[in-house]
């Protein structure tokens, strides 16, 4: 197996710190007039997206280009993927073109792990099913650290459809390694009790007020009740019991920040007022996405 980035779970604290520190170096470049470096000049990155994703794909593409690499993006529709070619065959074909890394998003949990066992090319996981989304957790940590000196001892509430969230899992793994107190919150049908065993420092609650109480960070997850094909929670009730509203923020620390991996559903998981709230850092997350992905690409290929 070649060294790519499959998940946060396998990383240790030092490796994460190194990526976050490097991402900080890349932050100023985002606002320069000339944004391009030549660190990865001559390198080739393939973005292979089996699930539609405008923001993550674009973010990786921009990150690659700002490092001077060439990036090719392939989406599931309009390629051999839709002609019934198996995943292994597609990846073998791509690997034969000798890219320096493959950035991959796939709806099946473990798809990049399975491929990494059979391919020489480093694979960067850009989200696999309901398993992990490592660069999202890294950019979230970068965003928190832009406002706090350290992660140690913070209290973070993650609220929403935890069961189906790769963002939640990667964040739990990352934050737990830094001694964060993590509260996961959602309706019981979206909050399996086994989540408490995911990493040290994790607590579960079905009460959003309890979750938010004294929190430094409130992470809201995108809720796609219509895609679950089962009665996990009545969609009409979701916002009433698990949507974040302005009055909730009084329960959190006075300087608590609100995060969301996007794209947001106004009126579904958070109110429009919260989305536009001054301590909502959703757009900072997007901006940090590029710096963090530059750091990851440099680590994997550089």
């Amino acid at each position, binding site marked *: 197996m070649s060294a790519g980035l499959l998940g946060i*779970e396998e990383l240790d604290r030092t490796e994460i710190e190194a990526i976050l520190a490097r991402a900080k170096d890349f932050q100023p470049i985002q606002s320069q007039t000339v944004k391009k470096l030549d660190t990865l000049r001559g390198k080739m990155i393939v973005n292979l997206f089996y699930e539609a994703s405008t923001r993550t794909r674009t973010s990786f593409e921009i990150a690659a280009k700002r490092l001077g690499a060439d990036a090719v993006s392939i989406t599931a529709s309009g390629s051999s993927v839709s002609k019934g070619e*198996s*995943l*292994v065959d597609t990846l073998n074909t791509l690997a034969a073109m000798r890219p320096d890394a493959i950035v991959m998003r*796939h709806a*099946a*949990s*473990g*798809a990049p*792990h*399975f491929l990494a066992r*059979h391919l020489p090319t480093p694979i960067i996981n850009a989200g*696999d*099913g*309901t*398993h*992990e989304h490592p660069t999202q957790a890294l950019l979230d940590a970068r965003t928190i650290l832009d406002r706090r000196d350290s992660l140690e001892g913070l209290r973070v509430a993650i609220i929403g459809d935890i*069961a189906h969230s*790769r963002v939640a*899992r990667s964040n739990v793994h990352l934050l737990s390694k830094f001694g964060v107190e993590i509260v996961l919150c959602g309706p019981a049908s979206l909050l*399996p009790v*086994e*989540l408490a*065993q*995911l990493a040290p420092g994790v607590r579960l609650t079905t009460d959003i007020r309890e979750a938010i109480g004294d929190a430094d960070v409130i992470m809201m997850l995108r809720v796609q009740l219509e895609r679950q094909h*089962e009665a996990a929670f009545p969609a009409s009730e979701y916002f009433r019991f698990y949507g974040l509203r302005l009055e909730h923020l009084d329960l959190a620390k006075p300087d608590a920040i609100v995060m969301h991996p996007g794209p947001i559903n106004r009126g579904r998981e958070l109110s429009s007022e919260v989305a536009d709230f001054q301590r909502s850092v959703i757009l900072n997350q997007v901006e940090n996405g590029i710096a963090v992905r530059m750091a990851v690409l440099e680590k994997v290929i550089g």
Partner: protein
Amino acid sequence: MSIVIKNGRVIDPASQTDRVADVLIVDGRVAGVAPNLSSPKAEVFDATGMIVAPGFIDMHVHLREPGFEHAETIESGSRAAAAGGFTSVCCMPNTKPVNDSATVTSYIVERARRKAVVNVFPIGAITKGSAGEELAAIGAMKEAGAVAISDDGVPVMNARVMRRAMEFARSYDLPIIQHCEDLNLSGGGDMNECANSVRWGLRGIPAAAEDVMVARDLLLAELTGARYHIAHISTHNAIAMVDYARKHGLAVSCEATPHHFALSDRDMAPYDSNYKMKPPLRSARDRAAVVEAIAAGTVSAIATDHAPHPGSEKMQEFERCPFGIIGLETAIALSLQELVHTAKISLNRLVELFTTGPESVMRLGRGTLAPGAMGDVTIFSTELSWTYDVNQSHSRSRNSPFDGKIFRGGPVATVVGGEMVWQRG
């Protein structure tokens, strides 16, 4: 044609035999079990230091023929059976077409007669196409050679259909075998619902999916008086219910697979489809309950659920891979390792689980070395050290989580109808 197997420890629970003796087989039948037997023209096999037992029966295999010959054939599956120490196998009906008619049953019987090196007994479908709706031609399949009925691979979800099927099975004096899984509860799951399924983001199959169907079926078995058998039992609650039903006199039984007593969900390698099967590998508690139930006698038989799938189908995203692993060649070794070497059961009990146990359910007229019995013999060692190399398997498929495993004890030679059909090379 005769063969004499000399100086082995003969264990035949059916005739309460456990002593060092020779076994003489003449014209396909057991002629005698006694010291110093000989016959002028008999082939001689020296079984000194080995166990000589009635031919082992695997009451649950998938031979994939007709329809899926790229995965297995009756011939290749029977060779894997022989190499695993089995002399008789019962093959499930989920072929293409499904074995839901006398025509398909006869085809399997005929193919087996020409190609198989062990005895092959077909199991007919409960419902047409195993679709769970309309009953199959059960009586006609029995006349053609079916020894039981099952829709294995899928359960009969409709309780009313299951009730009628049990009544028909009783009329024809056939056992009815159920794959217990409430499909609404298991709903697209890929592994046991547990800490690892949540960690890996894989959809879980709760133990309750098995338990609720076992509960329903035991009530229906009481209602109908059917001989009801649960395939591959895997949860502690299901076992407790079977135990309760048996103690209350119901004609119910169950089997356990080697993988369910050898592995738990903690032993899975992440996203490795060689650990993907139904029922899924369960919790450590469930695994321990299966071992205890085997020792206590609640489990009547060890069956492999040998389920070949070609590499191309297992080389996919985990959630797209089919369920099932091959198991014929590793069953005895895993049973010795997990049950006998750990002193959970005696060697006699082990032999029962592969002979009189399945025989009591399936009534094949086998499973003993009494004089006049069919000349099927399994010769195995409890000490032989060997390594399982799945690439050398006689099966056409390679989907086993036990590749490369070093075993203590395993099959040495297999005799079917007085003929040596396999010997360890």
